């Protein structure tokens, strides 16, 4: 049985599904890689307390209750703003009349607030379109989704939305109500979303939040300060976006005129985070150092957000890898063998493919160490096969999908899956393993990749890692290592300092 973090008082782990029992609640198949970052940030910026409101916290923090209660957090839904930004860009079929009217009302009201210039003749509609296009230009997740489930890049706290899923029948019904455009009805229109379905923001960000919070408890307080302020700065540096977002939502609330100043599901929603396995703390120090290096880099805001999103995915996969072999063998022994040779005949390719296969096996096998029987007994119509099939989707198949989404595992389709690196991933490794402005010997950098992620590229790490097993291909790793060196050079991170001594540096010092 795993030890949970935080140590919740009333938690009965065996009643959870097997994958949750092993990897925490929860890592779920449908969450896209970007939504790990967004959900994590929702928890980070929101006000928090324990589920019984004993302790509380003002947000932008890594608060976790210590009294055995679950962590509760209170995101602000801002449905008016969300509708303003996304409605006109969403799938026609998912634009329901009631929202169309709400949108029109919102825009009409806004036009009355516009004072045109005497010099230039912009129409009021044009001004609203400019505001809408400005914000929509920062979209992150759109696609076929309904407007309420779309998302922006987190360039200001107001632009970080929580999950809101509209039910078709409910939306249609709301449109048929008689006094539909009365002020009271607008409140209902905004509140009647499902904020707790965990479909897209499926708690993966909560899991990551708990991991970071736990790690920060175990490291020196200066890290907590650096990371908290670093992330806050990343989210608040562009005040204009905060201002314009706040204005649009505020004017909507003027129309809605909700008499209740603090209305649940309108002004805020309440969510609770669950638990993670305590074992994750074993790489806590690494997680903290990686984030800390990244947030201190002087980077374009878009770039930083993108790299952070990728880093989270890499760390989540590492956490699952760690938990798998810790559960099965009691040691963190599963390597990530990276193939950079780009040669289907190279022995490295074979080793890397085998290694990745073993990784997926381990991640899935670990689930069998859960108390499956108690879970089956508890849930109606549940059996072994069903439970394990579902578990595969949330474990090894989840790792595969996430890794492929950042091109960490290639090819995207077809056999011979293995770890590889592209320019973005190389950038993440350099910027998270080396402090901004610092430099390391190439050999030391390889060592760090191994320490943090059990990444094996060169012969030295391979020899060290496989010390017990027979490894006949050590010399083949030289080709792999040379390819990595070339890749780092092409990305502008590696320089030859003198005789055969290459250094890797993180140039983004502020």
């Amino acid at each position, binding site marked *: 049985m795993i030890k949970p973090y935080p140590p919740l008082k009333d938690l009965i782990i065996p009643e959870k599904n097997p994958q949750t029992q092993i990897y925490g609640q929860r890592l779920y198949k449908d969450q896209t890689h970007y939504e790990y970052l967004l959900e994590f940030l929702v928890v980070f910026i929101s006000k928090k307390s324990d589920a019984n409101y004993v302790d509380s916290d003002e947000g932008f923090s890594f608060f976790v209750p210590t009294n055995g209660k679950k962590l509760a957090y209170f995101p602000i839904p801002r449905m008016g703003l969300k509708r303003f930004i996304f409605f006109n860009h969403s799938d026609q079929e998912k634009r329901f009349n009631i929202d169309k009217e709400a949108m029109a009302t919102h825009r009409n009201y806004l036009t009355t607030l516009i004072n045109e210039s005497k010099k230039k003749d912009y129409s009021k509609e044009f001004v609203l379109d400019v505001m809408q296009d400005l914000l929509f230009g920062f979209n992150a997740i759109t696609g076929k989704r309904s407007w309420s489930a779309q998302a922006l890049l987190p360039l200001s706290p107001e632009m970080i939305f929580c999950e809101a899923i509209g039910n078709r029948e409910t939306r249609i019904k709301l449109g048929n109500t008689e006094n539909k455009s009365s002020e009271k009805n607008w409140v209902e229109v905004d509140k009647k979303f499902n904020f707790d379905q965990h479909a897209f923001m499926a708690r993966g960000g909560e899991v990551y939040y708990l991991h970071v919070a736990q790690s920060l408890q175990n490291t020196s307080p200066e890290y907590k300060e650096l990371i908290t302020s670093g992330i806050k700065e990343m989210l608040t540096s562009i*005040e204009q*976006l905060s201002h314009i977002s706040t204005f649009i939502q505020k*004017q909507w609330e003027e129309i809605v005129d909700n008499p209740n100043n603090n209305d649940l599901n309108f002004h805020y929603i309440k969510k609770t985070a669950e638990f993670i396995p305590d074992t994750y703390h074993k790489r806590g120090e690494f997680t903290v150092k990686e984030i800390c290096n990244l947030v201190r880099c002087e980077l374009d805001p878009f770039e930083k957000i993108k790299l952070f999103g990728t880093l989270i995915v890499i760390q989540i996969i590492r956490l699952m890898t760690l938990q798998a072999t810790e559960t099965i063998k009691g040691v963190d022994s599963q390597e990530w063998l990276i193939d950079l040779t780009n040669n289907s005949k190279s022995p490295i390719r074979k080793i890397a493919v085998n290694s990745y296969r073993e990784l997926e096996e381990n991640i899935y096998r670990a689930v069998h160490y859960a108390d499956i029987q108690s879970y089956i007994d508890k849930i109606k119509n549940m059996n072994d096969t069903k439970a394990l099939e579902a578990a595969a989707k949330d474990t090894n198949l989840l790792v595969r999908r996430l890794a492929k989404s950042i091109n960490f595992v290639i090819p995207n389709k077809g056999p011979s899956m293995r770890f590889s690196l592209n320019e973005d991933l190389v950038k993440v490794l350099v910027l998270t393993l080396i402090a901004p402005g610092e430099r390391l010997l190439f050999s030391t950098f390889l060592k760090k990749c191994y320490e943090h992620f059990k990444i094996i590229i060169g012969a030295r790490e391979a020899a060290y890692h496989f010390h017990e097993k027979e490894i006949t291909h050590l010399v083949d790793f030289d080709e792999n290592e040379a390819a990595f060196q070339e890749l780092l050079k092409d990305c502008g991170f590696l320089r030859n*300092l003198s005789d055969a*001594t290459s250094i890797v540096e993180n140039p983004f010092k502020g």
Partner: protein
Amino acid sequence: MTNPYVQYLQSMNNASSTNDNAIAESQITSPYYDHIRIERELGTYLIKTIKEKPSVILLTGHAGDGKTGLLHQILSTLNVIRSQDNLKIKDVCYIEELSSLLLYVKDMSELTLQEQVAYLKEGFEVKAQGGSAIIISNTGPLIEAFKEYEKTISSNADLDAIEMDILKMMDNNGGEAKFVGQHEVVLINLARIDNTDLVPKLFEKILQPDLWSPCQTCSVAGSCPIYNNYNTIRENKESVITFIEAFYRWLYETDKRLTIRQILAHLTYSLTGNLDCGTLSIKKTEENLFNYHFANLFFGYIGTKSSSDALKIKAIQEIQSLRIDEKELPHNYNIFVRNDFSKLKKEVRYMSEKFWFNEMRFYNRNSSNLHSDEKPYLLRKAMRRMQVLFGEYSYEEQELLLAKVFTPIFPKYLKLREELIKKRELRILEKMVVRALNLILVGNIEGLQAEEVLYLPLKRNDVDVQSVQLLLGKVNTTEILVVQKEVESKFDGKVNFYKLEIKLSKIEESFPLSLLLLDYFDNIARGSVSTKLNPSLTHGVDKMKAKIYKAYKFKEEAEEVKVLVQTLKGPILVNLEIDDNKIYVD
């Protein structure tokens, strides 16, 4: 008859099998070494360092950068060894002038780790007793030895910090004494020293008349390509050196720096073609003179054919990759169309003309194959090589040549490096930089240019469509300056030069404008869209962007939202002032 000096020169390149001297040790003991070696200012600097206070000096660098030569220079200047003495692997000598000990290690890399640590330790002991140490080592062994040594001193030494200290010193290469862990050392990384300025001196030494005097009395002097090369270059030394120096400068500035040994290999091969003095015959005289001419050998060609032996020389690989002899050069029209060779130096004019007419005879009668045959093409290439090194050029033509051969901005860059240029010329560069920055940061700038403002929009680089961009700040273009900054070389006091920098009035640090960056900006400003930037420079540009955005952020209240709207008629600027419940637009 043979001139042993020619053999000595030939032994300095590895293009043939006789390469006895292509390693440092054997070069030094040759009697000719004393004639051609250059006193390096760096040696003087290090002697001064030792005289000022006891020091441990660590010398690193690529093989062929002159580490051993430098040590030899220092030791013989201090009268510890005689000029033709071999160096020992490690020795402790007594310097009479200072009445103190000097430990030297010729090459740590040849020793075991235990020996390395022991010698390092001994070096610090000598220093503690008032002496000094000079240790030559490759970087890898140096770092390992240092870590190992620190471990013997304290069990909880921060080994990562030692590595970072050493790497930082190697990177900055300032020549000052600094601490690595607990120990103060002077670390010199020869791989980071610009050696291009040594080329003219080196060439001059090689061409010293007394070394060539035995050739004068040789029976085949009149038909010897080597002696002919020597004479041709003596006559045109200045113009040849200008081009050679520009070529090596180009390599240095584009991260393809050569070591001194590589430069020597190139120059000695270009002079001698590794021909055997003893067996040169009088036959085929003129053909030989042309085939083994400096202008061909310098590019790795014998006559019109590329020599595979020559391609072992790095400089020749590099110069061939530039494809200089396929470019449109200033005198092409005169030579190829008008068959007028008067724009070549007189020493090569007659020879080239004769060779050209002789080889082209066939095509004069029958021009149908002129464009499809390879021979005329190869001949034209040979003529281009000749005109690159031995053309007559006015000042303007010389600049045009370098612009054609390398990159349009290159002659200007060389000038900027050498001398202070007129304010007006700097203003032109500023305009170019501003235009490039505008194109990089904003993109479509038609209509906005007149305002003399550089806008700073919040622009995504992962999508094309962002029709409305938030403006985060702006820079008045008058605040963007391009300045020349004089750089005094610590080690080579006589070769000061000017460095180009971009300076913004609100940012304290300035941004170095290297040749590659200048070229990149120049290309962008000229409207090139597909210009790819060297990735390490991309980081530089990104950092500069980040710094500019930070310093020139709008200071006004957040209520003022300025946006750039891309319309079909070009971008327009919209100002939204948003207060509690009003939006003012203008």
